[in-house]
Protein backbone atom coordinates (compact mmCIF):
# COMPACT_ATOMS: atom_id res chain seq x y z
CA UNK A 1 0.00 0.00 0.00
CA UNK A 2 1.35 3.40 -0.93
CA UNK A 3 1.77 6.01 1.76
CA UNK A 4 -1.40 8.00 1.99
CA UNK A 5 -1.71 11.70 2.59
CA UNK A 6 -2.59 12.52 6.20
CA UNK A 7 -6.21 12.70 7.23
CA UNK A 8 -8.25 15.77 6.41
CA UNK A 9 -11.38 17.08 8.07
CA UNK A 10 -14.29 18.96 6.63
CA UNK A 11 -15.69 22.36 7.54
CA UNK A 12 -19.05 23.59 6.36
CA UNK A 13 -19.81 27.21 7.22
CA UNK A 14 -23.28 28.72 6.98
CA UNK A 15 -24.26 26.55 4.07
CA UNK A 16 -27.59 27.24 2.37
CA UNK A 17 -29.04 25.45 -0.62
CA UNK A 18 -32.06 27.11 -2.18
CA UNK A 19 -34.04 25.80 -5.14
CA UNK A 20 -36.31 28.52 -6.49
CA UNK A 21 -38.61 29.22 -3.57
CA UNK A 22 -37.63 26.16 -1.56
CA UNK A 23 -34.85 26.26 1.02
CA UNK A 24 -33.46 22.73 1.25
CA UNK A 25 -30.61 23.61 3.60
CA UNK A 26 -30.87 26.67 5.79
CA UNK A 27 -27.66 28.13 7.16
CA UNK A 28 -26.01 24.97 8.49
CA UNK A 29 -22.47 24.79 9.85
CA UNK A 30 -20.55 21.70 10.89
CA UNK A 31 -16.92 20.97 11.58
CA UNK A 32 -15.60 17.43 11.29
CA UNK A 33 -12.07 17.01 12.61
CA UNK A 34 -9.58 14.91 10.62
CA UNK A 35 -10.21 11.22 11.19
CA UNK A 36 -13.53 11.83 12.95
CA UNK A 37 -16.80 10.22 12.00
CA UNK A 38 -19.76 12.60 11.96
CA UNK A 39 -23.40 11.67 11.52
CA UNK A 40 -26.33 13.62 10.13
CA UNK A 41 -29.75 12.33 11.16
CA UNK A 42 -33.15 13.41 9.92
CA UNK A 43 -36.27 12.37 8.06
CA UNK A 44 -37.04 12.80 4.37
CA UNK A 45 -36.79 16.37 3.24
CA UNK A 46 -34.68 17.44 6.21
CA UNK A 47 -31.83 18.41 3.88
CA UNK A 48 -29.34 15.85 5.17
CA UNK A 49 -28.48 14.37 1.78
CA UNK A 50 -28.45 17.79 0.16
CA UNK A 51 -25.60 18.80 2.46
CA UNK A 52 -23.48 15.92 1.17
CA UNK A 53 -24.43 16.71 -2.40
CA UNK A 54 -23.51 20.36 -1.93
CA UNK A 55 -20.11 19.36 -0.54
CA UNK A 56 -19.20 17.30 -3.58
CA UNK A 57 -20.75 19.65 -6.10
CA UNK A 58 -23.90 17.72 -6.99
CA UNK A 59 -26.15 20.38 -5.49
CA UNK A 60 -25.70 24.14 -5.89
CA UNK A 61 -24.32 26.09 -2.96
CA UNK A 62 -26.49 29.18 -2.64
CA UNK A 63 -24.51 30.58 0.26
CA UNK A 64 -21.79 29.48 2.62
CA UNK A 65 -18.43 27.81 2.31
CA UNK A 66 -17.04 24.29 2.26
CA UNK A 67 -13.38 23.61 2.99
CA UNK A 68 -11.00 20.87 4.00
CA UNK A 69 -9.43 20.96 7.47
CA UNK A 70 -5.78 20.03 7.88
CA UNK A 71 -4.75 18.10 10.99
CA UNK A 72 -3.06 20.24 13.66
CA UNK A 73 0.61 20.84 12.96
CA UNK A 74 0.30 19.87 9.32
CA UNK A 75 2.21 22.23 7.05
CA UNK A 76 1.75 20.60 3.67
CA UNK A 77 0.49 23.85 2.21
CA UNK A 78 -2.76 24.96 0.68
CA UNK A 79 -5.68 22.52 0.65
CA UNK A 80 -7.64 22.10 -2.56
CA UNK A 81 -10.81 24.13 -2.92
CA UNK A 82 -14.24 22.61 -3.59
CA UNK A 83 -14.86 22.11 -7.28
CA UNK A 84 -11.19 21.47 -8.06
CA UNK A 85 -10.23 18.08 -9.42
CA UNK A 86 -8.03 17.39 -6.41
CA UNK A 87 -10.86 18.18 -3.97
CA UNK A 88 -13.12 15.81 -5.87
CA UNK A 89 -10.55 13.07 -5.61
CA UNK A 90 -10.08 13.53 -1.90
CA UNK A 91 -13.80 13.72 -1.09
CA UNK A 92 -15.69 10.68 -2.33
CA UNK A 93 -19.33 9.72 -2.00
CA UNK A 94 -21.09 6.37 -1.51
CA UNK A 95 -24.73 6.53 -2.49
CA UNK A 96 -27.77 4.91 -0.96
CA UNK A 97 -29.01 2.66 -3.68
CA UNK A 98 -26.48 0.21 -5.06
CA UNK A 99 -29.10 -0.77 -7.65
CA UNK A 100 -29.17 2.76 -9.03
CA UNK A 101 -25.62 4.00 -8.54
CA UNK A 102 -23.76 1.49 -10.71
CA UNK A 103 -24.01 1.65 -14.49
CA UNK A 104 -25.97 -1.44 -15.51
CA UNK A 105 -24.20 -1.87 -18.85
CA UNK A 106 -20.66 -1.54 -17.56
CA UNK A 107 -18.57 -4.24 -15.97
CA UNK A 108 -17.21 -3.70 -12.48
CA UNK A 109 -13.81 -3.29 -14.15
CA UNK A 110 -15.00 -0.31 -16.21
CA UNK A 111 -16.81 1.20 -13.24
CA UNK A 112 -13.56 1.14 -11.28
CA UNK A 113 -11.32 2.17 -14.20
CA UNK A 114 -13.23 5.33 -15.02
CA UNK A 115 -12.40 7.36 -11.88
CA UNK A 116 -8.75 6.34 -12.29
CA UNK A 117 -8.75 7.65 -15.86
CA UNK A 118 -10.45 10.90 -14.84
CA UNK A 119 -7.90 11.52 -12.13
CA UNK A 120 -5.00 10.30 -14.27
CA UNK A 121 -3.93 7.67 -11.80
CA UNK A 122 -1.81 5.02 -13.48
CA UNK A 123 -1.37 1.35 -12.70
CA UNK A 124 -5.10 0.72 -13.12
CA UNK A 125 -4.81 -3.07 -13.26
CA UNK A 126 -3.15 -3.38 -9.85
CA UNK A 127 -5.34 -0.73 -8.25
CA UNK A 128 -8.57 -2.37 -9.41
CA UNK A 129 -7.54 -5.79 -8.18
CA UNK A 130 -6.38 -4.37 -4.88
CA UNK A 131 -9.58 -2.38 -4.39
CA UNK A 132 -11.73 -5.45 -5.02
CA UNK A 133 -9.62 -7.48 -2.58
CA UNK A 134 -9.95 -4.79 0.05
CA UNK A 135 -13.74 -4.79 0.01
CA UNK A 136 -13.79 -8.57 0.21
CA UNK A 137 -14.91 -9.33 -3.34
CA UNK A 138 -11.72 -10.53 -5.02
CA UNK A 139 -10.58 -10.54 -8.62
CA UNK A 140 -13.30 -12.92 -9.71
CA UNK A 141 -15.81 -10.06 -9.68
CA UNK A 142 -13.83 -7.85 -12.03
CA UNK A 143 -15.60 -8.65 -15.26
CA UNK A 144 -19.10 -9.14 -13.92
CA UNK A 145 -22.05 -6.83 -14.44
CA UNK A 146 -24.05 -5.25 -11.58
CA UNK A 147 -27.09 -7.46 -12.25
CA UNK A 148 -24.98 -10.51 -11.46
CA UNK A 149 -24.30 -9.17 -7.96
CA UNK A 150 -26.38 -9.07 -4.78
CA UNK A 151 -27.24 -5.76 -3.12
CA UNK A 152 -24.47 -6.15 -0.55
CA UNK A 153 -21.90 -7.02 -3.24
CA UNK A 154 -22.95 -3.97 -5.26
CA UNK A 155 -22.51 -1.72 -2.25
CA UNK A 156 -19.01 -3.21 -1.82
CA UNK A 157 -18.30 -2.22 -5.42
CA UNK A 158 -19.56 1.29 -4.69
CA UNK A 159 -17.20 1.47 -1.71
CA UNK A 160 -14.32 0.14 -3.83
CA UNK A 161 -15.10 2.81 -6.44
CA UNK A 162 -14.82 5.51 -3.79
CA UNK A 163 -11.69 4.08 -2.14
CA UNK A 164 -9.78 3.47 -5.35
CA UNK A 165 -9.00 7.19 -5.57
CA UNK A 166 -7.36 7.11 -2.11
CA UNK A 167 -9.69 9.74 -0.68
CA UNK A 168 -9.42 11.39 2.73
CA UNK A 169 -13.12 11.90 3.29
CA UNK A 170 -16.01 9.56 2.55
CA UNK A 171 -19.49 11.02 2.30
CA UNK A 172 -21.90 8.17 3.02
CA UNK A 173 -25.50 8.78 2.04
CA UNK A 174 -27.66 6.09 3.69
CA UNK A 175 -25.11 3.45 2.66
CA UNK A 176 -27.01 0.51 4.14
CA UNK A 177 -30.68 1.47 4.10
CA UNK A 178 -31.39 -0.51 0.92
CA UNK A 179 -29.78 -3.64 2.36
CA UNK A 180 -31.01 -6.53 4.49
CA UNK A 181 -30.15 -6.31 8.19
CA UNK A 182 -27.52 -9.05 8.03
CA UNK A 183 -25.89 -7.45 4.99
CA UNK A 184 -26.04 -4.05 6.68
CA UNK A 185 -23.87 -5.39 9.51
CA UNK A 186 -21.27 -6.66 7.03
CA UNK A 187 -21.13 -3.35 5.14
CA UNK A 188 -20.93 -1.29 8.35
CA UNK A 189 -18.07 -3.49 9.56
CA UNK A 190 -16.30 -3.06 6.22
CA UNK A 191 -16.67 0.73 6.39
CA UNK A 192 -15.26 0.84 9.91
CA UNK A 193 -12.32 -1.30 8.92
CA UNK A 194 -11.59 0.91 5.92
CA UNK A 195 -11.77 4.00 8.10
CA UNK A 196 -9.29 2.53 10.56
CA UNK A 197 -6.94 1.26 7.89
CA UNK A 198 -6.84 4.45 5.83
CA UNK A 199 -7.42 7.08 8.50
CA UNK A 200 -10.54 8.26 6.73
CA UNK A 201 -12.94 10.96 7.83
CA UNK A 202 -16.62 9.98 7.55
CA UNK A 203 -19.73 12.06 7.15
CA UNK A 204 -22.61 9.59 7.38
CA UNK A 205 -26.19 10.49 6.59
CA UNK A 206 -28.92 8.18 7.87
CA UNK A 207 -32.45 8.11 9.15
CA UNK A 208 -31.48 5.27 11.50
CA UNK A 209 -30.32 6.57 14.88
CA UNK A 210 -28.85 3.22 15.89
CA UNK A 211 -26.70 3.07 12.76
CA UNK A 212 -25.45 6.62 13.27
CA UNK A 213 -24.58 6.14 16.94
CA UNK A 214 -22.84 2.90 16.05
CA UNK A 215 -20.67 4.53 13.39
CA UNK A 216 -20.15 8.12 14.58
CA UNK A 217 -18.71 9.97 17.55
CA UNK A 218 -20.77 13.08 16.98
CA UNK A 219 -23.98 13.79 15.15
CA UNK A 220 -26.32 16.54 14.11
CA UNK A 221 -30.10 16.18 14.02
CA UNK A 222 -31.85 18.04 11.19
CA UNK A 223 -35.43 18.95 10.46
CA UNK A 224 -36.78 20.97 7.52
CA UNK A 225 -33.36 22.11 6.36
CA UNK A 226 -32.28 23.35 9.76
CA UNK A 227 -30.04 22.08 12.46
CA UNK A 228 -32.05 20.90 15.46
CA UNK A 229 -29.14 20.05 17.69
CA UNK A 230 -25.64 18.66 17.68
CA UNK A 231 -24.63 16.08 20.24
CA UNK A 232 -22.26 13.22 20.90
CA UNK A 233 -23.24 9.62 20.23
CA UNK A 234 -22.84 8.92 23.95
CA UNK A 235 -25.30 11.68 24.84
CA UNK A 236 -27.81 10.11 22.52
CA UNK A 237 -27.19 6.60 23.81
CA UNK A 238 -27.79 7.80 27.36
CA UNK A 239 -30.88 9.78 26.31
CA UNK A 240 -29.19 13.07 27.15
CA UNK A 241 -31.10 14.95 24.49
CA UNK A 242 -32.67 18.35 24.95
CA UNK A 243 -34.77 18.85 21.84
CA UNK A 244 -38.27 17.32 21.68
CA UNK A 245 -37.81 16.35 18.03
CA UNK A 246 -34.68 14.33 18.82
CA UNK A 247 -36.57 12.69 21.66
CA UNK A 248 -39.37 11.74 19.29
CA UNK A 249 -36.88 10.18 16.91
CA UNK A 250 -35.35 8.23 19.77
CA UNK A 251 -38.68 6.86 20.92
CA UNK A 252 -39.62 5.98 17.35
CA UNK A 253 -36.40 4.04 16.86
CA UNK A 254 -37.42 1.62 19.60
CA UNK A 255 -40.42 0.40 17.60
CA UNK A 256 -44.17 0.47 18.05
CA UNK A 257 -45.82 1.08 21.39
CA UNK A 258 -49.52 0.39 21.86
CA UNK A 259 -51.05 3.51 23.37
CA UNK A 260 -47.96 5.52 22.42
CA UNK A 261 -48.10 9.19 21.48
CA UNK A 262 -49.01 8.41 17.84
CA UNK A 263 -52.22 6.69 18.87
CA UNK A 264 -53.64 10.00 20.01
Amino acid sequence: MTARPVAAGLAIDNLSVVYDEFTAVDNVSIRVEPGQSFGIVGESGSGKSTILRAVCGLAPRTAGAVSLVAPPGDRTGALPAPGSREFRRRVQMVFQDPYGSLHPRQTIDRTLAEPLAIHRMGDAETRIERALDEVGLGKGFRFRYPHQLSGGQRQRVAIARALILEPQILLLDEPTSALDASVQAEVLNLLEEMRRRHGLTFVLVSHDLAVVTHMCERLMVMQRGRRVEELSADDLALSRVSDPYTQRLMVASRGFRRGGPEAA
Partner: protein
Amino acid sequence: MNGPSVADMLVVDDLRVAFPNREGGMTEAVRGVSFRLGRERLGIVGESGSGKSQTGRAILGLTAPEGRVTANRMEFDGIDLLHSSARQRRALRGGRIAMVLQDPKFSLNPVMSIGDQIVETLDAHARVSRREARDRALETLRQVQIDNPERVFDLYPHEVSGGMGQRAMIAMMLIADPDLLIADEPTSALDVTVQLQLLAILDRLVTDRGMGLVFISHDLRLVSTFCDRILVMYAGKVVEELSAGGLQDAQHPYTRGLVNCLPRLGEHRHPLPTLDRRPEWAL
Protein backbone atom coordinates in the same frame (compact mmCIF):
# COMPACT_ATOMS: atom_id res chain seq x y z
CA MET B 1 -69.79 -9.04 13.72
CA ASN B 2 -70.91 -11.89 11.51
CA GLY B 3 -67.75 -12.67 9.62
CA PRO B 4 -65.75 -15.87 9.79
CA SER B 5 -65.14 -17.41 13.19
CA VAL B 6 -62.07 -16.52 15.16
CA ALA B 7 -59.95 -19.61 14.90
CA ASP B 8 -59.83 -20.30 11.21
CA MET B 9 -60.39 -17.25 9.08
CA LEU B 10 -57.38 -18.28 7.07
CA VAL B 11 -55.88 -21.75 6.94
CA VAL B 12 -52.67 -22.33 5.02
CA ASP B 13 -51.24 -25.82 5.03
CA ASP B 14 -48.01 -26.74 3.26
CA LEU B 15 -48.08 -23.87 0.79
CA ARG B 16 -45.52 -24.10 -1.99
CA VAL B 17 -44.85 -21.56 -4.70
CA ALA B 18 -42.43 -22.46 -7.49
CA PHE B 19 -41.14 -20.59 -10.52
CA PRO B 20 -39.48 -21.92 -13.67
CA ASN B 21 -35.71 -21.54 -13.61
CA ARG B 22 -33.18 -21.29 -16.42
CA GLU B 23 -32.31 -24.97 -16.26
CA GLY B 24 -35.86 -25.80 -17.32
CA GLY B 25 -36.88 -26.99 -13.86
CA MET B 26 -38.77 -25.26 -11.07
CA THR B 27 -37.28 -23.35 -8.15
CA GLU B 28 -39.37 -23.23 -4.99
CA ALA B 29 -39.60 -19.75 -3.48
CA VAL B 30 -42.02 -20.88 -0.77
CA ARG B 31 -41.36 -24.40 0.50
CA GLY B 32 -44.10 -25.68 2.73
CA VAL B 33 -45.49 -22.81 4.79
CA SER B 34 -48.34 -23.59 7.20
CA PHE B 35 -50.24 -21.31 9.54
CA ARG B 36 -53.72 -20.42 10.76
CA LEU B 37 -54.94 -16.91 11.26
CA GLY B 38 -57.76 -15.54 13.36
CA ARG B 39 -58.66 -11.94 14.10
CA GLU B 40 -55.13 -11.06 15.04
CA ARG B 41 -51.99 -9.39 13.81
CA LEU B 42 -49.65 -11.95 12.34
CA GLY B 43 -46.19 -10.82 11.30
CA ILE B 44 -44.17 -12.57 8.62
CA VAL B 45 -40.53 -11.52 8.83
CA GLY B 46 -37.66 -12.39 6.58
CA GLU B 47 -34.93 -10.96 4.40
CA SER B 48 -35.01 -10.57 0.63
CA GLY B 49 -35.71 -13.86 -1.06
CA SER B 50 -37.12 -15.54 2.03
CA GLY B 51 -40.51 -16.06 0.34
CA LYS B 52 -42.48 -13.74 2.63
CA SER B 53 -44.00 -11.65 -0.16
CA GLN B 54 -44.74 -14.67 -2.33
CA THR B 55 -46.63 -16.18 0.60
CA GLY B 56 -48.84 -13.07 0.78
CA ARG B 57 -49.35 -12.95 -2.96
CA ALA B 58 -50.32 -16.61 -3.16
CA ILE B 59 -53.08 -16.06 -0.59
CA LEU B 60 -54.50 -13.31 -2.76
CA GLY B 61 -54.04 -15.25 -5.98
CA LEU B 62 -51.56 -12.70 -7.29
CA THR B 63 -48.72 -15.09 -8.05
CA ALA B 64 -47.20 -14.34 -11.47
CA PRO B 65 -48.78 -16.53 -14.19
CA GLU B 66 -45.67 -18.67 -14.70
CA GLY B 67 -45.55 -19.51 -11.01
CA ARG B 68 -47.07 -22.71 -9.62
CA VAL B 69 -48.96 -22.64 -6.34
CA THR B 70 -49.69 -25.86 -4.48
CA ALA B 71 -50.83 -26.66 -0.95
CA ASN B 72 -52.60 -29.30 1.05
CA ARG B 73 -55.10 -26.67 2.06
CA MET B 74 -55.55 -22.97 1.54
CA GLU B 75 -58.90 -21.75 2.80
CA PHE B 76 -60.36 -18.39 3.64
CA ASP B 77 -63.55 -18.52 5.71
CA GLY B 78 -64.13 -22.07 4.52
CA ILE B 79 -63.68 -21.12 0.86
CA ASP B 80 -61.15 -23.29 -0.92
CA LEU B 81 -58.77 -20.77 -2.48
CA LEU B 82 -56.83 -23.38 -4.43
CA HIS B 83 -59.79 -24.56 -6.46
CA SER B 84 -61.91 -21.45 -6.72
CA SER B 85 -62.43 -19.87 -10.12
CA ALA B 86 -60.79 -16.64 -11.23
CA ARG B 87 -64.18 -15.00 -10.82
CA GLN B 88 -64.55 -16.18 -7.23
CA ARG B 89 -61.02 -15.06 -6.45
CA ARG B 90 -61.74 -11.66 -7.94
CA ALA B 91 -64.81 -11.26 -5.77
CA LEU B 92 -62.76 -11.97 -2.64
CA ARG B 93 -59.81 -9.85 -3.67
CA GLY B 94 -60.24 -6.26 -2.60
CA GLY B 95 -63.64 -7.12 -1.16
CA ARG B 96 -62.97 -9.51 1.68
CA ILE B 97 -59.19 -9.80 1.43
CA ALA B 98 -57.34 -6.57 0.79
CA MET B 99 -53.71 -5.76 0.23
CA VAL B 100 -51.52 -2.76 0.96
CA LEU B 101 -48.21 -2.60 -0.86
CA GLN B 102 -44.95 -0.95 0.04
CA ASP B 103 -44.62 2.23 -1.91
CA PRO B 104 -47.60 4.50 -2.58
CA LYS B 105 -45.56 6.18 -5.32
CA PHE B 106 -45.76 3.03 -7.39
CA SER B 107 -48.99 1.46 -6.29
CA LEU B 108 -51.33 4.43 -6.73
CA ASN B 109 -52.54 5.37 -10.20
CA PRO B 110 -50.62 8.57 -11.03
CA VAL B 111 -53.25 10.00 -13.40
CA MET B 112 -56.32 9.58 -11.22
CA SER B 113 -57.22 11.64 -8.18
CA ILE B 114 -57.00 9.93 -4.81
CA GLY B 115 -60.73 10.26 -4.22
CA ASP B 116 -61.60 8.72 -7.60
CA GLN B 117 -59.32 5.77 -6.88
CA ILE B 118 -61.05 5.10 -3.58
CA VAL B 119 -64.46 5.37 -5.23
CA GLU B 120 -63.31 2.98 -7.95
CA THR B 121 -62.59 0.34 -5.31
CA LEU B 122 -66.03 0.78 -3.83
CA ASP B 123 -67.68 0.57 -7.26
CA ALA B 124 -65.95 -2.74 -7.87
CA HIS B 125 -67.52 -4.29 -4.79
CA ALA B 126 -70.79 -2.52 -4.10
CA ARG B 127 -73.66 -0.81 -5.87
CA VAL B 128 -73.81 2.72 -4.58
CA SER B 129 -74.83 6.12 -5.90
CA ARG B 130 -72.14 8.68 -6.81
CA ARG B 131 -73.19 10.79 -3.86
CA GLU B 132 -72.93 7.92 -1.39
CA ALA B 133 -69.64 6.73 -2.90
CA ARG B 134 -68.13 10.15 -2.38
CA ASP B 135 -69.42 10.38 1.18
CA ARG B 136 -68.08 6.97 2.04
CA ALA B 137 -64.69 7.76 0.49
CA LEU B 138 -64.49 10.96 2.56
CA GLU B 139 -65.47 9.04 5.67
CA THR B 140 -62.73 6.46 5.03
CA LEU B 141 -60.16 9.20 4.53
CA ARG B 142 -61.23 10.58 7.89
CA GLN B 143 -60.74 7.14 9.45
CA VAL B 144 -57.11 7.07 8.37
CA GLN B 145 -56.74 10.40 10.14
CA ILE B 146 -56.60 12.70 7.18
CA ASP B 147 -57.61 16.05 8.61
CA ASN B 148 -58.92 17.64 5.47
CA PRO B 149 -60.52 14.83 3.43
CA GLU B 150 -62.30 17.15 0.96
CA ARG B 151 -59.00 18.62 -0.13
CA VAL B 152 -57.15 15.27 -0.28
CA PHE B 153 -60.02 13.70 -2.25
CA ASP B 154 -59.18 15.88 -5.26
CA LEU B 155 -55.40 15.62 -5.05
CA TYR B 156 -53.26 13.46 -7.32
CA PRO B 157 -50.69 11.04 -5.89
CA HIS B 158 -47.72 13.26 -6.81
CA GLU B 159 -49.23 16.07 -4.75
CA VAL B 160 -49.14 14.22 -1.45
CA SER B 161 -46.34 13.02 0.85
CA GLY B 162 -45.42 9.35 1.23
CA GLY B 163 -47.26 9.10 4.53
CA MET B 164 -50.39 10.68 3.09
CA GLY B 165 -50.21 8.43 0.01
CA GLN B 166 -49.99 5.35 2.20
CA ARG B 167 -53.00 6.52 4.24
CA ALA B 168 -54.89 6.88 0.98
CA MET B 169 -53.85 3.33 0.06
CA ILE B 170 -55.14 2.04 3.37
CA ALA B 171 -58.36 4.02 2.93
CA MET B 172 -58.79 2.39 -0.47
CA MET B 173 -58.47 -1.05 1.09
CA LEU B 174 -60.81 -0.27 3.97
CA ILE B 175 -63.69 1.10 1.99
CA ALA B 176 -64.80 -2.39 0.96
CA ASP B 177 -64.67 -3.42 4.63
CA PRO B 178 -62.42 -6.48 4.26
CA ASP B 179 -62.10 -9.26 6.84
CA LEU B 180 -58.44 -9.78 6.15
CA LEU B 181 -55.74 -7.26 5.30
CA ILE B 182 -52.42 -8.36 3.86
CA ALA B 183 -49.88 -5.57 4.24
CA ASP B 184 -46.59 -6.11 2.44
CA GLU B 185 -43.99 -3.74 3.90
CA PRO B 186 -46.66 -1.06 4.31
CA THR B 187 -44.42 1.38 6.15
CA SER B 188 -40.94 0.62 4.81
CA ALA B 189 -40.84 3.60 2.45
CA LEU B 190 -41.79 6.02 5.23
CA ASP B 191 -39.95 8.00 7.87
CA VAL B 192 -39.82 6.46 11.35
CA THR B 193 -42.21 8.90 12.98
CA VAL B 194 -44.69 8.59 10.08
CA GLN B 195 -44.26 4.82 10.25
CA LEU B 196 -45.50 4.78 13.82
CA GLN B 197 -48.49 7.00 13.03
CA LEU B 198 -49.51 4.59 10.28
CA LEU B 199 -49.07 1.58 12.50
CA ALA B 200 -51.25 3.22 15.13
CA ILE B 201 -53.95 3.73 12.47
CA LEU B 202 -53.67 0.12 11.29
CA ASP B 203 -53.69 -1.10 14.85
CA ARG B 204 -56.87 0.74 15.69
CA LEU B 205 -58.62 -0.43 12.52
CA VAL B 206 -57.72 -4.04 13.20
CA THR B 207 -59.00 -3.79 16.75
CA ASP B 208 -62.16 -1.78 16.02
CA ARG B 209 -63.24 -3.73 12.97
CA GLY B 210 -62.00 -7.10 14.15
CA MET B 211 -59.95 -7.60 11.02
CA GLY B 212 -57.21 -10.15 10.58
CA LEU B 213 -53.88 -8.71 9.55
CA VAL B 214 -50.90 -10.33 7.89
CA PHE B 215 -48.04 -7.90 8.24
CA ILE B 216 -45.11 -8.77 5.99
CA SER B 217 -41.84 -6.99 6.75
CA HIS B 218 -38.08 -7.25 6.84
CA ASP B 219 -38.04 -5.17 10.03
CA LEU B 220 -37.84 -7.58 12.92
CA ARG B 221 -37.84 -4.85 15.53
CA LEU B 222 -40.94 -3.17 14.17
CA VAL B 223 -42.88 -6.40 13.69
CA SER B 224 -41.99 -7.75 17.10
CA THR B 225 -43.36 -4.63 18.75
CA PHE B 226 -46.52 -4.53 16.62
CA CYS B 227 -47.76 -8.07 15.98
CA ASP B 228 -49.36 -10.67 18.25
CA ARG B 229 -47.46 -13.50 16.63
CA ILE B 230 -44.50 -13.64 14.27
CA LEU B 231 -43.39 -16.19 11.72
CA VAL B 232 -39.72 -15.94 10.82
CA MET B 233 -39.01 -17.09 7.28
CA TYR B 234 -35.73 -18.18 5.78
CA ALA B 235 -35.18 -19.71 2.34
CA GLY B 236 -38.89 -20.29 1.75
CA LYS B 237 -39.64 -21.89 5.10
CA VAL B 238 -40.88 -20.81 8.49
CA VAL B 239 -37.91 -21.45 10.75
CA GLU B 240 -39.49 -20.17 13.93
CA GLU B 241 -42.71 -18.82 15.40
CA LEU B 242 -42.53 -16.19 18.11
CA SER B 243 -45.13 -14.59 20.34
CA ALA B 244 -45.39 -10.83 20.78
CA GLY B 245 -42.34 -9.35 22.44
CA GLY B 246 -40.72 -12.77 22.48
CA LEU B 247 -37.77 -11.69 20.40
CA GLN B 248 -35.35 -12.27 23.27
CA ASP B 249 -36.53 -15.85 23.59
CA ALA B 250 -35.85 -16.68 19.94
CA GLN B 251 -34.30 -20.13 19.65
CA HIS B 252 -33.41 -20.50 16.00
CA PRO B 253 -29.84 -19.39 15.23
CA TYR B 254 -31.10 -17.45 12.20
CA THR B 255 -33.54 -15.37 14.25
CA ARG B 256 -30.95 -14.82 16.94
CA GLY B 257 -28.37 -13.82 14.35
CA LEU B 258 -30.80 -11.37 12.81
CA VAL B 259 -31.54 -9.78 16.19
CA ASN B 260 -27.85 -9.60 17.04
CA CYS B 261 -26.59 -7.99 13.87
CA LEU B 262 -28.68 -4.84 14.35
CA PRO B 263 -26.82 -1.90 15.84
CA ARG B 264 -28.47 -0.80 19.10
CA LEU B 265 -28.59 2.55 20.79
CA GLY B 266 -26.22 2.64 23.71
CA GLU B 267 -24.24 -0.47 22.88
CA HIS B 268 -20.69 -0.57 21.65
CA ARG B 269 -20.14 -3.67 19.59
CA HIS B 270 -17.32 -3.30 17.08
CA PRO B 271 -17.37 -5.09 14.75
CA LEU B 272 -21.03 -5.99 14.72
CA PRO B 273 -21.72 -9.72 14.83
CA THR B 274 -22.60 -10.95 11.37
CA LEU B 275 -24.87 -13.73 10.32
CA ASP B 276 -23.16 -17.00 9.54
CA ARG B 277 -25.66 -18.62 7.20
CA ARG B 278 -25.64 -22.37 7.79
CA PRO B 279 -26.53 -24.56 4.83
CA GLU B 280 -28.67 -26.77 7.08
CA TRP B 281 -31.12 -23.88 7.74
CA ALA B 282 -32.16 -24.05 4.11
CA LEU B 283 -32.76 -27.81 4.15
